[in-house]
């Protein structure tokens, strides 16, 4: 009795190359191309109604804003090596009035140049002194000290007290009549100890610094009688976290070293982007769009129409290698221009177009394939006057392609990332555990299904019985979580069919309930990438009972061989048998009954009998098409 032997294990790299680089039938990717192309065409035709509103100069997100964004938006990274370098940046307050006030303060700082920084240094001296205190509480106290000086008179009194001098005596009206009061003590009491204990010279310096800062703040037009902006400046400096405060003060101090134009640029940048471009990892975005450069409405309409034509060509599979790149560039251009109008659908569309650009999606189910069939037939007829074995094989089905299969693998793996991320991220939300997530979605009044009273009544019916409601929402979220988390694993097992069916059902349900039809359709198109090649190819084949035709031609006549090649190119169901006839003066087509036809009648018989052309017979009504086809198939 022989013992079963296990096949030798493949080396890991073999498994890797087999997975990614085994040639596959391009029919699957071709079908994905057609499906994607139709949806992309719809998506962009729908843009036609909103071209100006979404992408025009004064769109919802106007050109001026997106221009600034793509040139200036900063990105930052935590320090890679340093442990002790804080990840903090100069920040303005998010409250607009407070931000406005702080910017007024920054813009009011005296001008300086790299060669003369004295005035600005003097204006900032007090704040820097306060910041030099080790104890953050003392910084706050030091600022509160100046903040409590509402008027110039008050300021002078405080500074007099700081200098250790007697503040002028004031007259108070008491019950016993007017009385001279020495108020020095109250001012001294409000002087921080860390100033009161300084030497006389140092106190004089502090007084000067306070006066300079106070005068600076006093000179600013705050725009309101209460001069609240002044307080906002102090409040921001006090409330900003220590690391942020350091970053802000470092930024303000660093301006001193810049020339006036650069100072203005940096302040504008800070106000808009809330950061310092000099410490950014990079500024600007790596995005491109034709709509950044074309804003004239007429030109936009023309370009948009051209884009739709190219998408149509891509869908039909005409010059697919070129049009797939053009379509991706064009579609990403819409995406990059106004990201505010996007949702998950655009993400899926882009993923599909990107991988379709990599794979040879025009190798099957395309006009390119018809052209290739024509060229193959013609070459074979020119070589041997007949259709040789290789050509017959090529005409029967598109040859396996490494890059078509590779692109489908890319799509499959990416799809698993999408599902896994979508499923796992939902586990963070309590509503996905108790079922409310499903309810919140189906009852969302802004989704289009809520326009139907019938739908609303159906929902109310579900809520009539408490257990029905809870069972429904529980199973709905469990089903969603199961599909999204389990599918990336089960798709690679024998259960692939089951999960494809369940996932398609889930997308259909979401599409109906939420009205996100196109998003869900694109997800289903992604699922198509998991279908075996034959499943799709066989669906496109005609049945066994198709009519058989013969096409007679003279192989010695170049026009005849071209016509025969064309006939074979259009015959995707193997219906035609070529009949070489060296005596033939004209090509002709004959059906099973043997009745031959040529010219216009031949074209009619040809389009009637050939499955592909019979489906496209409406095209013959387009002026010129019938004549052209007749000329090509039945040359005189």
């Amino acid at each position, binding site marked *: 009795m022989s013992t079963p032997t296990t096949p030798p294990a493949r080396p890991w790299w073999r498994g890797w190359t087999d997975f990614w680089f085994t040639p596959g039938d391009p029919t699957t990717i071709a079908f994905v191309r057609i499906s994607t192309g139709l949806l992309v065409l719809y998506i962009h035709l*729908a843009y036609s109604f909103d071209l100006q509103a979404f992408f025009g100069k004064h769109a919802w997100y106007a050109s001026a804003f997106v221009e600034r964004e793509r040139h200036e938006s900063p990105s930052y990274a935590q320090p890679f090596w340093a442990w002790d370098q804080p990840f903090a940046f100069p920040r303005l307050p998010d409250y607009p009035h407070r931000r406005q006030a702080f910017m007024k303060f920054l813009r009011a700082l005296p001008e300086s140049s790299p060669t003369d920084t004295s005035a600005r240094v003097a204006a900032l001296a007090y704040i820097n002194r306060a910041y030099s205190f080790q104890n953050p509480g003392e910084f706050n106290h030091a600022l509160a000290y100046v903040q409590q000086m509402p008027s110039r008179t008050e300021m002078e009194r405080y500074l007099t007290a700081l200098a250790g001098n007697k503040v002028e005596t004031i007259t108070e009206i008491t019950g016993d009549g007017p009385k001279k009061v020495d108020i020095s003590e109250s001012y001294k009491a409000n002087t921080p100890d860390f100033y009161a204990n300084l030497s006389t010279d140092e106190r004089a310096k502090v007084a000067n610094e306070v006066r300079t800062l106070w005068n600076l703040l006093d000179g600013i037009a705050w725009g309101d009688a209460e001069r609240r902006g002044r307080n906002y400046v102090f409040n921001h400096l006090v409330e900003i976290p220590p690391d942020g405060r350091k970053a802000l003060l470092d930024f303000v101090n660093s301006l001193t070293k810049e020339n006036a134009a650069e100072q203005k640029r940096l302040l504008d940048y800070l106000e808009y982007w809330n950061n310092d471009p000099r410490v950014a990892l990079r500024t600007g975005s790596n995005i491109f769009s034709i709509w950044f450069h074309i804003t004239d409405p007429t030109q936009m309409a023309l370009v948009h129409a051209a884009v739709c034509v190219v998408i149509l060509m891509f869908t039909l599979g005409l010059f697919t290698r070129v049009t797939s790149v053009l379509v991706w560039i064009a579609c990403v251009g819409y995406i990059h221009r106004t990201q505010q109008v996007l*949702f998950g659908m655009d993400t899926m569309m882009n993923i599909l177009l990107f991988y379709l650009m990599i794979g040879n999606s025009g190798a099957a189910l395309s006009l390119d394939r018809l052209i290739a069939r024509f060229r*193959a037939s013609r070459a074979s007829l020119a070589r041997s006057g007949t259709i040789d074995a290789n050509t017959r094989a090529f*005409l029967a089905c598109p040859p396996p392609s490494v890059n078509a299969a590779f692109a489908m693998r890319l799509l499959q793996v990416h799809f698993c990332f999408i599902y896994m991320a979508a499923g796992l991220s939902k586990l963070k939300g309590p509503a996905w555990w108790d079922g409310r997530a499903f309810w*919140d979605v189906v*009852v*969302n009044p802004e989704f289009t299904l809520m*326009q139907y009273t019938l739908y609303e009544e159906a929902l109310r019916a579900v809520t009539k019985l408490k257990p029905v409601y809870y069972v429904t929402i529980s199973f709905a979220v469990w089903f969603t979580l199961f599909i999204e988390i389990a599918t990336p694993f089960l798709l690679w097992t024998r259960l692939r069919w089951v999960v494809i069916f369940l996932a398609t059902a889930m997308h259909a349900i979401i599409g109906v309930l939420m009205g996100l039809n196109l998003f869900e359709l694109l997800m289903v198109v992604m699922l198509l990438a998991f279908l075996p090649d034959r499943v799709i190819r066989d669906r496109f084949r005609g049945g066994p009972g198709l009519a058989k035709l013969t096409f007679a031609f003279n192989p010695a006549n170049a026009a005849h061989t071209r016509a025969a090649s064309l006939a074979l190119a259009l015959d995707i169901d193997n219906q035609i048998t070529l009949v070489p006839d060296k005596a033939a003066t004209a090509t002709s087509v004959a059906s099973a009954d043997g009745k031959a036809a040529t010219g216009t009648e031949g074209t009619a018989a040809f389009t009637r009998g050939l499955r592909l052309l019979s489906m496209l017979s409406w095209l013959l009504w387009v002026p010129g098409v019938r004549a052209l086809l007749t000329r090509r198939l039945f040359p005189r």
Partner: protein
Amino acid sequence: MDRDAPLASPTSPADAVPLYDARASRNIAFIGLGLCGAAVLLGVVAAFGGDSTPLNSMRVALVFIGMVTTGAAISMRPDLWWMWGLGVAASTLGFFGLSPDWDSFHALLLVMAGVSVFAMLLRLSSLRWRIVIISAMLMFHFVGIFSAVTSPPTSPWLTDQAFTRVYNPYLQFIYMRNAYHFYSPEPGPASILAFLLKTETGTDPTTGRARYKTEWIVMPRKPIDVRDPLGLSYYRRLSLTEQLARGNAGLAMPNDQFEKTDVWYRRNSRTPDAASRRELDRSEAIQIPFHPTEVPTIRQYKLPNADVARFILPSYASHVILDFTPDKEAAAKTTVKVYRLEHQALPVDQFRLGLNPFHPGTYRPYFLGEYDARGNLLNPQEDFLYWMLPVVPRTPGPGDPNKKGYIDYMSVHATGMKPEEVLAADEKDGQVFDWNQLRWSSLR
């Protein structure tokens, strides 16, 4: 010729389909190169000429046609390494051929040149090295996708570094930065935007005060904005509204104590209770209560994210003014008040009782500021800025002349009318907000 005979199995299309002639492909590529080169020459001419606008337009057209022509040539013979070399040359010429204001396409052409170099190297490599190089690219790509998936806060240090330092430019370029966290952690409520346009039309001769024409605009409008059969245009507008929902709810955050106190104080001082407690004569200033059920009341404040407040909101406001005024003069005299109406879905216990999911009380309007046509926020210290303005349900009594089941304080705020005036106003007149327009009226 028997086409039903047994089939051979070609391993490559080239076995059956003749390759395009290399010289023909090269010549086509040269045409593309020539067109791109012509654009470079026009650029030189433009640099010395006066008005370069027509020349620059021609340069764009030449580069576009040149690149497509070269691309077509490469697609004819992608197996030849030197065809990809011509692709590098065309991209480089295209880069210099485009005028500087087409800067985003400079980046695209650089990438095209890079891809052509990559493809050329692949063509020059042995099969083994091709597999190694493509495998490395695969790993790079999917590690990038993984970094995008794990990038939303709070992300690990490794993801943060990989994403920001390495992957962000790449993923941004190909638009694959999405983390795919759909409806996570929880599905939130949708938002509607309401704008009150206020255009100065002249001066009242008796009072000397400015006169205004007002108009309410809603986005998205139902069913007008469902412009295509699948409602894509409608959902795109919902995405626009969703942008403004990003922000920090509430005032209970650790920092900004003074500011929160100030924001709270100013808002609180505008409630009817506060006014009556302090016995202030506030007849001129509108008073609006807090929403009665959204407690604690500090949750009724929502500070928008920095990007929303700084450029998205101003852009929207500017767009609405320019779109709904006849000319620049009118736009210059127009301001717009922006409100985001968060539409709460009814919880099941209310839904089952038959409550209307479109009842005005289900909306939570937030005031997002008043803007001019340039998108400037007119009063950053507005007491109600970023606060919820409640729509409070009420039950009209038997003898109550006003049958409305709610008091709309958003209209009180927007128009400056007293609550009783808003209550009495006919919403069809257009002065106060018409809540009926938010229903799917056409089919209900």
